[in-house]
């Protein structure tokens, strides 16, 4: 579905991605791992058209490189950024409303789905999102993106700041997404959850992919883990 | 002095709220500088106008004054805004005192604050317009004979000009028509009010049949407009109906009910009619600041008399000078340098054969209803003129 070849990305003049190649297939959870600053978030932003990049990004056979973010989103890509970016002055419900795309027909998800998934959000439905607790905000961003009915969801460190129990929950929901046929590109820091739920794992280092394989293979490969992941 | 060039600096707003008026007057000066140059004046001098935009600001005017001095200009003409005139008078007084031999004369063609020829009178200042007290004098003389006037409302802008109009109107009415009742008095901020209908409602409620107002610009036009709309049928006695922009804004409204007091009007005939027609074809604008002509007349007479263009001599010659002007015989009163000249009461009405001149192509005109000889409007002065030397 998503195919990335030789992707280079820049912030102004600084060259951050140096030729990234990978694919995400239908209904697949792919974990993108790596240390701080290795360029994972940049990859996500490049796909969404939020940073300058060169190379090819193919989405269902169509090149989306160079397209504007809203065009990319309309083609069915969803993005949950790492810094949450909830809209602080809008209520929870309004935040979700904004997730819906203009002229969306019968989407896979409804408000109720979201509220059953995270009952906490239902309770805070009409509060300004800015005052939500850190964890609640994290739930909200995920739901907001789902409301746009994406076919592939790129999700950047979703478990950051979540209580251990909720982290598990998020893991389950990501699997659930997969069951509904949605692909997931999961950018993670915490190995545990990524290893548990992903079909494939990618490790990124200094702006390129240094490992690709199943979680099991990664577990075996101590060199990669030592050199490119945790100490 | 024949063949000499006399530079006159015109310091008035060419940008901002009052720009249309200032621009019109600059054109008037340029037009008549040409008309009066050379053999066409008794002194045989050539007049040249140097223009400065003072943005209606006293401080900017002082800059302009400095710039004019740098260019060797010795005659300054200004008219819009008493604050500017006041600043110029002060500055010129000080300059003349501190720089003997480089004296400057101030030709005031429209700033009507009576103080300039009373408490603040200056030897270097000459006023060619009639001051507020004189205009009110004539206006009330006219009103004296109109027995229909019973209740008067004073409606003015809240700054010195408006306050003075109100003050003199009260004094004069009390003297000439003690039976007339002043049923209301209002001062509103200058150029701030967009909707005059509350005031009109108030005026109506007071039962006034006549309004005296010194308002100008949109403050006058909107006032009359609001009055028409609200069905107010009283009369307006004004100062500045004929000034740029107001005729258009008034339009057909207010015919027969809006009066103006001034030292000239649109249908003076004679040379003036020719000039106005020529002015109109040349600039597509109306000439109404008659004091410009008065200034050129007076200045050239004085220069001829003084046989010099040196301001010191010209000032001495100009003092007390009597000369013929388009509106009759006029005199620059020696005691206070206030020109004594006839005034005219005119009324806003449809232009016709007799009074054909239609400002801003409105189809309307200001038709004269009465002329007041100089002595009628002449007011006493408290000036203690300090003469140099």
């Amino acid at each position: 579905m998503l195919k990335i070849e030789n992707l280079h990305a820049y912030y102004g003049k600084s060259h951050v991605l140096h030729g990234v190649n990978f694919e995400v297939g239908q209904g697949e959870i792919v974990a993108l791992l790596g240390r701080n600053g290795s360029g994972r978030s940049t990859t996500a932003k490049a796909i969404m058209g939020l940073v300058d990049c060169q190379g090819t990004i193919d989405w269902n056979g169509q090149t989306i490189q160079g397209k504007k973010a809203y065009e990319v989103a309309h083609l069915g890509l969803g993005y949950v950024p790492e810094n949450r970016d909830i809209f602080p002055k809008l209520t929870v419900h309004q935040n979700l409303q904004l997730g819906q795309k203009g002229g969306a027909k019968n989407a896979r998800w409804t408000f109720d789905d979201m509220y059953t998934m995270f009952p906490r959000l239902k309770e805070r439905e009409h509060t300004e999102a800015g005052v939500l607790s850190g964890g609640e905000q994290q739930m909200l961003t995920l739901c907001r993106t789902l409301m746009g009915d994406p076919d592939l969801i790129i999700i950047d460190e979703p478990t950051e700041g979540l209580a251990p129990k909720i982290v598990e929950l998020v893991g389950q929901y990501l699997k659930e997404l997969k069951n509904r046929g949605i692909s997931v590109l999961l950018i993670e820091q915490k190995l545990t959850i990524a290893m548990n739920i992903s079909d494939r794992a990618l490790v990124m280092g200094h702006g390129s992919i240094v490992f690709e394989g199943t979680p099991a293979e990664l577990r075996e490969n101590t060199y990669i883990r030592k050199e490119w992941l945790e100490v | 002095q024949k063949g000499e060039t006399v530079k006159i600096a015109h310091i008035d707003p060419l940008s901002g709220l009052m720009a249309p008026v200032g621009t019109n007057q600059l054109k008037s000066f340029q037009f008549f500088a040409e008309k009066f140059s050379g053999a066409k004046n008794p002194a045989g001098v050539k007049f040249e106008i140097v223009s400065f935009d003072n943005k209606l600001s006293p401080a900017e005017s002082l800059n302009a004054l400095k710039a004019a001095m740098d260019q060797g200009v010795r005659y300054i003409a200004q008219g819009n805004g008493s604050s500017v005139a006041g600043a110029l008078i002060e500055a010129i007084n000080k300059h003349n005192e501190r720089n003997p031999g480089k004296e400057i004369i101030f030709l005031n063609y429209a700033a009507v604050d009576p103080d300039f020829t009373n408490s603040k009178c200056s030897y270097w200042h000459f006023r060619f317009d009639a001051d507020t007290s004189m205009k009110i004098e004539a206006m009330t003389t006219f009103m004296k004979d109109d027995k229909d006037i019973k209740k008067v409302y004073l409606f003015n802008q809240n700054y010195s000009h408006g306050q003075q109009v109100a003050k003199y109107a009260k004094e004069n009415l009390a003297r000439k028509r003690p039976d007339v009742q002043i049923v209301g008095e209002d001062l509103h901020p200058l150029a701030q009010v967009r909707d005059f209908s509350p005031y009109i409602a108030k005026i109506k409620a007071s039962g006034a049949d006549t309004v005296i107002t010194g308002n100008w610009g949109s403050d006058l036009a909107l006032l009359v407009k609001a009055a028409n709309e609200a069905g107010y049928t009283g009369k307006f006695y004004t100062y500045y109906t004929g000034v740029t922009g107001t005729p258009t804004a008034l339009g057909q409204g207010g015919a027969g009910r809006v009066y103006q007091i001034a030292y000239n009007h649109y249908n003076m005939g004679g040379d003036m009619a020719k000039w106005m027609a020529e002015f109109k074809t040349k600039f597509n604008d109306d000439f109404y600041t008659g004091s410009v002509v008065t200034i050129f007349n007076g200045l050239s007479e004085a220069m001829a008399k003084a046989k010099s263009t040196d301001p010191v001599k010209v000032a001495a010659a100009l003092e007390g000078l009597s000369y013929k002007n388009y509106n009759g015989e006029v005199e620059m009163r020696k005691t206070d340098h206030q020109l004594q000249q006839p005034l005219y009461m005119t009324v806003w009405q449809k232009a016709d054969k007799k009074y054909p001149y239609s400002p801003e192509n409105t189809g309307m005109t200001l038709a004269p209803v009465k002329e007041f000889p100089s002595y009628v409007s002449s007011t006493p002065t408290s000036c203690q003129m300090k003469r140099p030397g």
Partner: protein
Amino acid sequence: MSAVYKFKPYNVGRWVIWSLFALVLVCAPLVFTSNLSTTMLAQMGIAIIACLSYNMLLGQGGMLSFGHAVYTGLGSYMAMHALNAVSAGQLGIPVSLLPLVGGVAGMGFAVLLGYVTTRKSGTPFAMITMGVAELVFAMSLMFSEFFGGEAGVSGNRVAGQPFMGITFGPQVQIYYLIAIYTFVCVALMYAFTQTPLGRMLNAVRDNPERVEFIGYNTQRVRYFAFIIAGFFAGIAGGLGALNFEIVTAEVVGAGRSGAYLLFTFLGGATFFFGPILGAILMIIAFVLLSELTKAWLLYLGLVFLFMVMYAPGGIASLIMMNLRVAKFGKLRQIWTSYLGLGVTAIVMLAGAGAMIEMVYHLQLNSALGDSVKFMGVMLNAKSLDSWFGAAFVMLTGLGLFELARRQYSLEWGEIQTEIEKEIKRRETAV
């Protein structure tokens, strides 16, 4: 865009800069000797104090005020009343100290009015200052006892005992008085930026919330800064009163406040010296430009539009960016580009200017003949030749300018990368 560069205050450099500043102040009237230029120089000095004091609020405190003229203006009025009292022999202070009266007055009003305005920040602050300014202006026309009505209050600065033959009558003497005040005030205001309160003001601008959690009351910080700014504003006002010897309602008007805002920004609110440039430009624009061309307001508006769009840091930031390039010895690489840019810009502007002047001429002065003098060339506003000529010049200029600009931005980008690299290298080398 916002290339940030910190000016290292080498002490030698500082001495040189301040001495140069003093030298310029001393020599300016010897170079520009006409009446107009002396008074313009004096006004520049005043404007410098006013704009710098305004920038204490805008640049350093992040307070967008629409009513700074209230403090300069009321300072002017008080100084003028004091001057009149001196003339009348009721007050025994030398004329040279009257600006301080203005300063104290400005401060007093800032204490009074600032108490309400500085309780808020951001847009509410801006709007309150606008409201206060409108109120003060309206009152200035209503209360003629203090404000002198439309005619204002005037006075004679030759009052009291002359000191060593200095009467302050001649413009040059008043210029030097202003120059001394300017120098001292600029130095004091610079010093202020280096004090604890000055620094906290920056902190309040950047993140008022956090300031509360390190022990400071943000309102207090803003209030104190406002008072100090009011003091310097008042001094500027007092000097203005001495310079013009008349004070009218316009000194507290919205136009004046707006001018401080615009020109402070144009000069560059992020650098200390920015407002100084702004102030000088302000006087030039108001006094000279308006005499030079009828279209001055149009030019002013356009300059503003483009400056804000392309150089939001003001002139000062442009200068600093190039200084940085110079400091890394790269100015030589780019100066040909600048030359190209400059020449093509002049060509383009000449064309555009000619057309604008012709339009204005048709509008305003068509009766005075069809010829317009522009940059030494006689143009005929009614002939197609002139129009085609001007349009041709402008379009050629535009085309070449665009080429030059591309070349320039390419080089500029390269130089910036090189500099970044160099900085990184130096950092790691440490």
